[in-house]
């Protein structure tokens, strides 16, 4: 028998596949359903202190093997989100609260509420590539990154993960600034845009958005490998995963668990069950008893 369970900083996952932040995780009923359909847990949509409307449509561009989104971090604010957390947590599986803001104080306030609402961990979104004043603009400043993580770590008991962007000149420097966290989530979307050649203008209402899906897999693998080699910390790998082999590659690069986003749109919620089946099959064929045998194996070599 093969063992596909994971222990992520004390959080038990029945399989390595979590739902990534921003995909089907605004509504508590939906989060519950995704877990019932096979995800080991979910990461919520990124939540801020105050309600945020986000961008006008179009907010997504559907591409061959990829998509670009600029939802604009719309969210109802942390207080209103308590109701959704209550609905989601009923499922009994871990719910990781993703949060964002501009200053350490914002992050702290939201993190404390998330813990109260029953989140199993906090994920700090330091990496949204298309909203001014938050996300990547925060996450590319090592001083701010260090301060945010100190502040949050000092206020909650649950593990804290720093989600970083691939749009960094020097990811190692930011990872080092984030070492007070318990681990990393890598990667967020890559800053991108689409232009319609007939309409002669950008498609997204915000022009710029974040590229996700299979097109970014090899960028994500690189970043997981780099940061695992640099820090050895637990990593949730994310970016373009749509098959168990993709996930295996991410684990070999150093991911303790993985998240799936765009592929849920491409293949439906049923992808979680399929991934689990495929992974079990792969492990049997390759004679792998536990995923611990492969996590980081491509880094040591």
């Amino acid at each position, binding site marked *: 028998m093969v063992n596909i369970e994971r222990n992520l900083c004390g959080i038990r996952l029945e399989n390595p596949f979590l739902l990534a932040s921003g995909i089907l995780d605004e*509504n508590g009923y939906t989060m519950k359903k995704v877990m*019932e359909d096979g995800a080991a847990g979910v990461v919520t949509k990124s939540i801020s202190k105050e309600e945020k*409307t986000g961008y006008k449509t179009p907010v*997504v561009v559907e591409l061959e093997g990829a*998509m670009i*989104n600029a939802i604009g971090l719309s969210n109802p604010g942390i207080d*209103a989100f308590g*109701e959704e957390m209550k609905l989601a947590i009923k499922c009994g599986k871990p719910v990781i609260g993703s949060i964002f803001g501009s200053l350490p104080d914002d992050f702290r306030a939201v993190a404390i509420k998330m813990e109260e609402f029953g989140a199993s961990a906090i994920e700090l979104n330091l990496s949204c590539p298309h909203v001014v004043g938050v996300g990547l603009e925060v996450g590319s400043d090592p001083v701010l990154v260090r301060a945010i993580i100190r502040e949050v770590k000092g206020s909650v008991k649950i593990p804290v993960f720093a989600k970083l962007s691939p749009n960094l000149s020097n990811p190692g420097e930011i990872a080092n600034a984030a070492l007070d966290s318990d681990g990393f989530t890598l990667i967020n979307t890559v800053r991108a845009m689409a232009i319609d050649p*007939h309409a002669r*203008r950008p498609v997204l209402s915000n022009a710029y958005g974040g590229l996700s899906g299979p097109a970014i897999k090899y960028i994500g693998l690189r970043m997981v490998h780099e940061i695992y080699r640099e820090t050895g910390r637990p990593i949730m790998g994310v970016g373009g995963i749509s098959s168990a082999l993709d996930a295996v590659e991410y684990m070999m690069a150093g991911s303790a668990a993985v998240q799936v986003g765009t592929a849920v749109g491409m293949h439906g919620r049923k992808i979680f069950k399929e991934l689990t089946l495929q992974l079990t099959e792969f492990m049997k064929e390759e004679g792998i008893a536990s995923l611990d045998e492969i996590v980081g194996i491509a880094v040591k070599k």
Partner: protein
Amino acid sequence: MIRARINNVRHETPSVNTLTFTWDHAVQPGQFAMLWMPGYGEIPMSFSSTGKEKAFTVKNYGLTSSKVLELVDGDYIYFRGPYGRGYTERKGRSLIIGGGSGMASLRPLINDDSYGIVSAKTRSELLFRHMFHEASLMVATDDGSEGVKGFPVDILKDMDISPFKNIYICGPEMMIFSIVKYLADKRPEAEASLERSMKCGIGVCDSCSVSGFQLCRDGPVFSVGEIANMKEYGHEKLSFSGRRVPVT
């Protein structure tokens, strides 16, 4: 993004136009597209014709749809799709229950053996009524300007529905909700196309979800039996920013 040139703009009611265009792609009745008005916005729109010549039938609700109503013959439209799961088409007599612009998605299902319950706020807004034989049509208006003053469910309750092999429903949430409650134990296989605000159309943004189902992917068409089990339907939904609000 698909671009098509409008063959013809037809004024259906004071607030509704049908745009026809040629697009050689298979579409099931009940499927929809995300229609983009460059510089304005992108909105979900059912195909009101699914033959080789396709059509959108658009009601002027607000920002983006009002711009669509300004389009004339020869203009271009931009859209992506088709998306979603459409109606199950079965042979036999059908009852088609549509409210307001909801008639748009039902139009490809209308044939010689169809009966219709068409409703709207007022008589001038009754859509596609002329596609039914006069004897097969029942009408309800909010203001009583034609037909029954009231809602389609009131007509339905007075009817013998046993001759209908198929029942198809589309319209505002409270209209569908009342019909679902009535039909749930009588005709659970009847189908309704649901509406919620849609941002992505491709099952990622969660804005269209009802009780865990994504309307854009799992629907928009569901059976009455399925809908009856959706706790959120008819009660609560999320606002554009994700705030839980009651459905009215």
